[in-house]
């Protein structure tokens, strides 16, 4: 039984079929690339898994239990975290504040103990701050700890997005276009970190357009087009799949002989 099983997920927005009977299995330790042309349903799939959208049909099984229909906060509590394509931030907060505010799941102490500032809370708080700083160090954000998040450069803002998602202690991390807008070096830095995360036991799902990144780090790839899965397998196999090439580039002979 796979760690995450997406079975028959269909998502309709009125008449628009954004996802149509999508089936994907993700094993523990995978780095799954989710690729496809724009509008193929990649982000919608992430949104459905994270609980932001309710699926019209189908189920999502985490360790065998169906999590479809739960709220996003419940799903994150069960170990699935995500980043956002448009890199959402907390306006006005510094890097460290953004992280602490996003780390609620790292605490076992409840609101009452936090309010009174009991010793158990304060000890736990110190540990959480330590872990948060580790995450910042890992993603090269340590030097920016006290900087306002919206003053970071674009690349570092995306890294902060990943750091925030990591603050929730996910077992499965879903990254929505993590290297968009980055140059080669920055993209490889992200790849480095995805490898480090995988080594720490985190399973990664990654929406990507950059094929170098995908071939570099993904263990397997799923291709979506118009809401359906059109191919699946290791990166180099999928890249050479005729249907996949057609989906991205159009039919070879179109217009050639007409």
């Amino acid at each position, binding site marked *: 039984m796979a760690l995450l099983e997406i079975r028959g997920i269909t998502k309709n927005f009125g008449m628009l079929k954004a996802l149509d009977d999508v089936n994907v299995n993700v094993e523990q330790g995978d780095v799954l690339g989710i690729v496809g042309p724009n509008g193929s349903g990649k982000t919608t799939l992430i949104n459905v898994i*994270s609980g*932001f959208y309710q699926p019209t049909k189908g189920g999502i099984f985490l360790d065998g239990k169906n999590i479809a229909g739960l*709220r*996003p*906060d*419940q799903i*994150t*509590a069960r170990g699935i*975290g*995500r980043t*956002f394509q448009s890199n*959402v*931030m*907390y*306006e*006005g*907060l510094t890097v460290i*504040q953004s992280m*602490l*505010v*996003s*780390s*609620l*799941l790292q*605490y076992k102490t409840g*609101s009452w103990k*936090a*309010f009174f*500032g009991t010793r158990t*809370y304060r000890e736990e*708080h110190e540990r959480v701050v330590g872990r948060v700083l580790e995450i910042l160090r890992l993603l090269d954000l*340590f*030097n*920016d*700890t*006290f900087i306002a998040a919206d003053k970071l450069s674009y690349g570092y803002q995306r890294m902060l997005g990943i750091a*925030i*998602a990591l*603050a*929730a202690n996910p077992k499965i991390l879903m990254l929505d276009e993590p290297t968009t807008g980055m140059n080669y070096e920055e993209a490889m830095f992200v790849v480095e970190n995805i490898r480090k995360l995988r080594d720490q036991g985190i399973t990664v799902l990654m929406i990507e357009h950059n094929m170098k990144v995908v071939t570099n780090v993904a263990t397997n790839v799923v291709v979506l087009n118009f809401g359906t899965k059109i191919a699946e397998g290791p990166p180099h196999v999928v890249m050479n799949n005729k249907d996949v090439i057609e989906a991205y580039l159009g039919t070879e002979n179109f217009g050639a002989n007409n």
Partner: protein
Amino acid sequence: MNPHIDWRNTFPKIVACILAAPALIVPLLTDNPATLSTMILSGIWAVVAMGFTLILWTGQFSLGQAAFMAIGGYTSGILSARLGWPFWPSFLTAGLVSGAVACAVGAVVLRVGGFYFSIITLALGEIVRIIAMQWQSVTRGTRGLVAYPPEAISLGFIKIDFEATPVPYYYFMIVLVAVTGLIYWRIGKSRLGGTFFSVAINPMLAEHQGIHLMKFRVMAFTVAGVFTGLAGSFYAHFLQAVTPYMLGIPESIQVMIMSIVGGVSSLVAGPIIGSVVLYNLSQFLQRAGSDLQTSGFVLEGIQPLVFGGAVVCILLFLPRGSGLIDLWTRFWKRVYKEVDFYELPEDLEEETNTH
């Protein structure tokens, strides 16, 4: 200088305490019941305004806080005047009932949130008023209830008599403001405050970090409900009456304005400053108005004008949402440029400052 005290943060607080200290001896400085009454009412409104700000900190605009005052006032009025309860249990129960209503209403209404929530809280004021008017058997309708002053307290040879002068009410107000302020301040500084903030500024992101939005919205709404109910009960027992017309939409809006003018970025000091400044200003103008009236000038409706004008000025001149408190913060930033304080930077701040 003691190297372990963060003087940058502590010094302004010490100055604030020194500036606020005279409040404790106001009754020794003046006998005028009108002055005391104004200060007492400012304090009551400050407590309510703090509740508004707390709810705002979870991203919601409640235009119905006066309704919770009314619920508190009526609860303690009914318990004391109609059921013969002594003041203190009535007072505390008023807070609990108001909180319970806030929790129940919030659990339903906070799901829609945003604009719809604000409209519904506005309607809440009217609903409470209508219930107060119609449920004659309990509330005596438009005739209202008499809310007796608290019973005298005997402490050894000192007898605190609430019936003679407003002075005991004044100190009661000080205690209420201090206790409420302490609790709200602690909420703001703790992990709860950060969580509320994240729910307000980016609910989608907060949700994906495992924060259950409804739980925290209802929590804030309920806490505000409890203390607003207590304030309402005090209000009723101070004015010694509770009627359907005394707390409605204009009062809810007044509370909102006090919070905004004081500064929404501050959970305790902002509302206090906003309510003291605005309430005193409006009372002063009202008295000036009635003085002028004798010489033919009519200054009707000065209070809404003052309040509205104050908001406009604040929004124009102190637009970063920080209201009057912003003046305080900016003052201290200026001070630090001129004066050399022994700053003990957090090791972290030095370590990270490699830019």
